[in-house]
């Protein structure tokens, strides 16, 4: 085509594309569209920091303003990834400090962020606006002080659920007096007390402040001072919600709340004294999001509060709410979309509250918009799961944790296969599923057959054999993240579905039966995967090839092998040489014997590899939207 739109026009059109998927598609049209698009991409999301290098990102996208990145695998949240594993942001910050002087936003999840990184961020990017550190660690309040002091236009500082070494509360006082740009401040994870007067002054001079999440150390009596200075608040996280019971404190608090007409979200609520809850009632009708997951109050108080919140869309609560409370919730909150019920006593041998499957069933019956569930309980039945599935075919995220591993249906003592099967069969939009209880290979057959939109699956203490894993890998077309612990899955399913792993972001398997030999094979034959073994027992080749590895993490990458692996992580790649002790044990090409006996599967594998070879280009681009 001799004539086409001038570049400027195309660029102007591309400006309107905000979704990564759309931008990636546009890049594939032709070389010139690829070029135009890459110069005007402002936002990059990297789902796995090891899937690509800073250099590659910078080379392709020279004008990035916003970076969002995730590091450690999800199971790191539960101490399954050892300390020192990696995901340090520092190399990224150094590279970007040179390449992206106009960088405005950095959002990180499960990454290690040091004070050096924070200081470098604060000094490298003149227009830095947004820092979100979600479940990160490695920094102290000194690092926060650098951010506060040096980021002149800071809009957001959000430390949600990060582990911060709390040296003192003094960091907050580093915000300069002329800093008036703050829109969002979340310091709820910090322990130390900050200077209250510094906090007050900061709030006073931040007319755009919409989100303020305080830490536990901010006393309830002082909360009104802040609320009065920020009546425009949309989201509030209280500090400890307790004080001596005095009517002047109460009326002060109630009055302050009544001024905040825009409040939509509430959180905090440590150490709740129930007598103070009514002080909030004036705002309840506008509340759409309520996080009571630290509020150790009993069901009646919870019910009184929650039934005031008729427009509630999202509720996080402890299992103190009990079945009766959930029934009340189902009756009052017809707009509820998300429910998370956390265990108050996860390690107790006996139930301490009356929360069973009935609570969840009631909510599934009463709340037509319910689509996202995280539920910890002690008993479950197939009947309940079937009912939930039938009630809520619109379910999108379903995470059920029965506290006892391998607990069967408590009524019939059968596995919970049919129950979870009903979930995947009825809930056709299901994108995320976590299962628990007694489960056989059958449930995986149901999942492989029905869960076509499933993107993330978490499995623990489930299944009987490799067939289970095979069903999932061969059936779940949209699968991106698979995490497995303590299941009897081994080499066969993994090797037979090797090609599938390149279509996913990552696979985690710990305490399963994958042998070192299979890991090596996978690493040798799949150069675009990093196959990493985490093992505390020393180098895997000091043990026989058939020995199962402790933990396996496989992910697709264009970055090649990691260069920052700690001593307990080994990568299996083309250069892996067999050690002398295994000289008599060289595997066949492709380890044919290890593969499923059926020729059909082998043929599938060969075909899949061929397809992949042709899709090389697509893989490269699609890595930027994982």
């Amino acid at each position, binding site marked *: 085509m001799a004539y086409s739109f001038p570049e400027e026009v195309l660029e102007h059109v591309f400006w309107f594309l905000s979704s990564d998927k759309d931008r990636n598609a546009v890049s594939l049209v032709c070389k010139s569209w690829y070029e135009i698009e890459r110069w005007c991409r402002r936002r990059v999301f990297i789902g796995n920091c090891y899937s690509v290098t800073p250099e590659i990102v910078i080379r392709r996208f020279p004008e990035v303003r916003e970076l969002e990145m995730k590091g450690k695998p999800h199971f790191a949240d539960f101490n399954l990834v050892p*300390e020192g594993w990696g995901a340090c942001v520092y190399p990224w910050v150094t590279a970007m400090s040179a390449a992206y002087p106009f960088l405005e936003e950095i959002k990180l999840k499960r990454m290690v962020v040091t004070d050096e990184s924070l200081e470098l961020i604060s000094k490298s990017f003149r227009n830095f606006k947004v820092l979100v550190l979600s479940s990160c660690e490695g920094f102290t309040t000194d690092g926060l002080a650098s951010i506060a002091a040096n980021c002149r236009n800071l809009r957001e500082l959000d430390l949600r659920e990060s582990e911060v070494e709390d040296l003192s509360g003094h960091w907050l006082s580093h915000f300069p007096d002329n800093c008036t740009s703050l829109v969002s401040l979340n310091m709820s994870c910090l322990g130390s007390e900050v200077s209250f007067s510094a906090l007050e002054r900061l709030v006073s001079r931040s007319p755009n402040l919409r989100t303020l999440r305080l830490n536990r150390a901010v006393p309830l009596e002082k909360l009104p001072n802040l609320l009065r200075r920020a009546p425009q608040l949309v989201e509030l996280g209280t500090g400890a919600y307790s004080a001596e019971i005095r009517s002047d404190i109460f009326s002060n608090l109630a009055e302050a709340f009544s001024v905040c007409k825009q409040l939509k979200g509430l959180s905090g609520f440590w150490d709740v004294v129930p007598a103070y809850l009514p002080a909030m009632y004036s705002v309840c009708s506008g509340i759409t999001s309520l996080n009571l997951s630290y509020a150790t109050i009993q069901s009646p108080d919870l019910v009184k509060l929650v039934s005031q919140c008729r427009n509630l869309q999202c509720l996080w609560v402890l299992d103190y709410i009990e079945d009766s409370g959930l029934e009340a919730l189902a009756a009052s909150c017809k707009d509820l979309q998300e429910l998370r019920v956390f265990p108050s006593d996860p390690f107790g041998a006996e139930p301490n509250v009356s929360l069973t499957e009935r609570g969840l069933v009631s909510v599934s019956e009463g709340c037509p918009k319910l689509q996202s569930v995280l539920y910890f309980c002690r008993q479950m039945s197939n009947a309940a799961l079937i009912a939930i599935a039938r009630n809520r075919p619109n379910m999108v995220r379903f995470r059920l944790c029965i506290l006892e591993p391998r607990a069967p249906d408590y009524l019939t003592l059968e596995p919970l296969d049919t129950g979870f099967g009903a979930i995947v069969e009825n809930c056709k939009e299901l994108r995320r599923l976590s299962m628990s209880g007694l489960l056989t290979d059958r449930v995986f057959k149901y999942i492989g057959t029905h869960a076509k939109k499933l993107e993330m699956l978490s499995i623990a203490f489930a299944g009987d054999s490799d067939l289970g894993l095979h069903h999932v890998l061969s059936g779940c077309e949209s699968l991106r993240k698979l995490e497995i612990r303590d299941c009897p899955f081994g080499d066969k399913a993994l090797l037979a579905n090797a090609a599938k792993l390149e279509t996913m972001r990552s696979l985690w398997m710990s305490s399963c039966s994958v042998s070192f030999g299979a890991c090596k094979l996978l690493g040798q034959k799949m150069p675009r995967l990093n196959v990493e073994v985490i093992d505390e027992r020393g180098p895997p080749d000091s043990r026989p090839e058939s020995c199962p590895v402790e933990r396996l993490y496989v992910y697709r990458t264009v970055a090649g092998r990691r260069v920052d692996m700690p001593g307990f992580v080994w990568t299996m790649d083309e250069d892996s040489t067999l050690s002398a002790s295994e000289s008599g044990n060289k595997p066949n090409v492709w380890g044919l014997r290890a593969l499923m006996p059926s020729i059909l599967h082998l043929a599938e594998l060969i075909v899949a590899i061929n397809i992949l070879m042709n899709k090389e280009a697509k893989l490269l681009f699609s890595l930027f939207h994982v």
Partner: protein
Amino acid sequence: MPMENGKNLPESEYPGGLKTELTLGLPGGEAAAPKSGGKRGFSETVDLNLGTSAEVEVSVSTAPQSKAQIVGWPPVRSYRKNMIKNCKYVKVAVDGAPYLRKVDLEIYASYQELLTALEDMFGCLTICNVLNERKIMDQANGTEYVPTYEDRDGDWMLIGDVPWKMFVESCKRMRLMKSSEAIGLAPKTSSKGLSIS
């Protein structure tokens, strides 16, 4: 509540007596007890028999109030656990072991309980009482360890010198140091202990 007990994977025996046992059952579960024997205490451990062929002695000083714990189960983030109950997780490093573990100091009532739990966790270690001094040893290679901790002020101190409650409050992290390296560590709560980076 009835619990279907987990399957045990076939045990693999290797020359040199190195036994690697991956079991799917809970440690100290009802039916097949893990080969290492006995119920574990409060410690969170992975049910892997690591390292040596020496029998791991598991001693529990008090009856467990809660069940034996599996690492990372139930899947509640430690952040959340810390917020709800009285939890004080500190990191424990052992010189020579590849990675750190975390212990919740609040669940122990005394130094003896803590050291016993450490014994469980780092399976190759045993506590010996030598002349009233508590020492920790790796029986297999005779290495002696000295239990130390870093306190609030950043000083490294010997474990056991201050009353238990005071220790729980001030301990930031622990390290089982090889005896050979512990020379110079002040035995009492002096202002400058041996500083370890």
